């Protein structure tokens, strides 16, 4: 085989680069985002519950919000009926941020940790009292 040394060195460099994130991050612990549910609006609630159970919201809030978008803009439905039959106005800035008025410590905390950049707020307005 020709150029054995060069090939082996190349493979080594390649492996080093590919595995870089693993050995670079070894021993380090990333601090998970701390999500704050402590807002005046949530404190006022008798039952501290989101419109759907927390595990569902955690996993599916993006799908839910997307389906709200289609329902409101394209199908003229404005009211969401949850599993218990409770009704909510489908509004990101009023219903969601109505309770979660601390966007920075709720939405942004997790989104920046996971490197997700939703473009909701390019157009939708963060209500005052939150942050703008």
């Amino acid at each position, binding site marked *: 085989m020709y150029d054995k040394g060069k090939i082996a060195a190349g493979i080594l460099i390649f492996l080093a680069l590919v595995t870089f994130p693993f050995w670079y991050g070894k021993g380090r612990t990333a601090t998970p985002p701390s999500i704050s549910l402590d807002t005046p609006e949530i404190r006022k609630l008798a039952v501290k519950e989101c419109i759907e159970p927390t595990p569902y919201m955690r996993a599916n809030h993006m799908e839910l919000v997307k389906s709200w978008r289609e329902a409101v803009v394209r199908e*003229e439905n404005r*009211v969401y009926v949850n599993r218990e039959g409770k009704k909510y106005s*489908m509004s990101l800035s009023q219903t969601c941020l109505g309770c979660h008025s601390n966007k920075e410590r709720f939405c942004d905390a997790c989104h920046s940790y996971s490197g997700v950049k939703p473009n909701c707020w390019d*157009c939708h307005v963060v209500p*005052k009292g939150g942050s703008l």
Partner: protein
Amino acid sequence: MNCSRRSFLKYAGLSLIGMGVKPALAGDEASRFTRSPEELMAKRWAMVINSRKCPGGCKECIDACHRVHNVPNFGNSKDEIKWIWNEPFRDAFPGQEHAYLQEDFKKKPVIVLCNHCDNPPCVRVCPTKATFKRKEDGIVVMDYHRCIGCRFCVAGCPYGARSMNFRDPRSFIKEINPDFPTRTKGVVEKCNFCEERLSRGLLPACVVACREKAMVFGDLESPQSEVRKLLQAHFTIRRKPELGTNPQVYYIV
């Protein structure tokens, strides 16, 4: 496995039917959305503008609309965004002007806005269906989420009712109304007949703002509606009806 061609096709057909039936049975998602109880509903929303009553030069309706909908003011006519605006009579109704037209019309501009056409060319040219005509009430609305800024609709609309955001509009809005979104750079916008206000049981902002009550909004399909009564009582014209767009804003001149 021993399977004749005949039975294979039979099972394949059956499973295809099964695949078609499943989504129909599982379709309980849609029932989770309902309409707002306070919504104003109509079979066909339309507007009658009494330009005789309109004092001309008044900008109450324009200001109200642009304030409610976060319409930016870039300060130059090249980038101008407009939902409702003043147009000279000869431009609003080309072909209707002649040398001996009443002086009043020569001077006085006409209030114009999106005509919410029954046959809207902007909808036909939109490649992403961002602009569509609502089946229920005929309003031509935009889904800003889907607009890719191709501006086919700007070219397609014969009334100039569509404006493109060539720059980021946020910083050009004097006071942001938190109840309505702004737009971003690269998105087209236009009058939406205040569909967001209708859903809350409110009449369009321009109609409410007009001190002279020169703008009337109502259901064209209901014979008792105020718009129908006005159309019965007065001769009305529409903007460029010869183009076949069937505009739904009527003018008493």
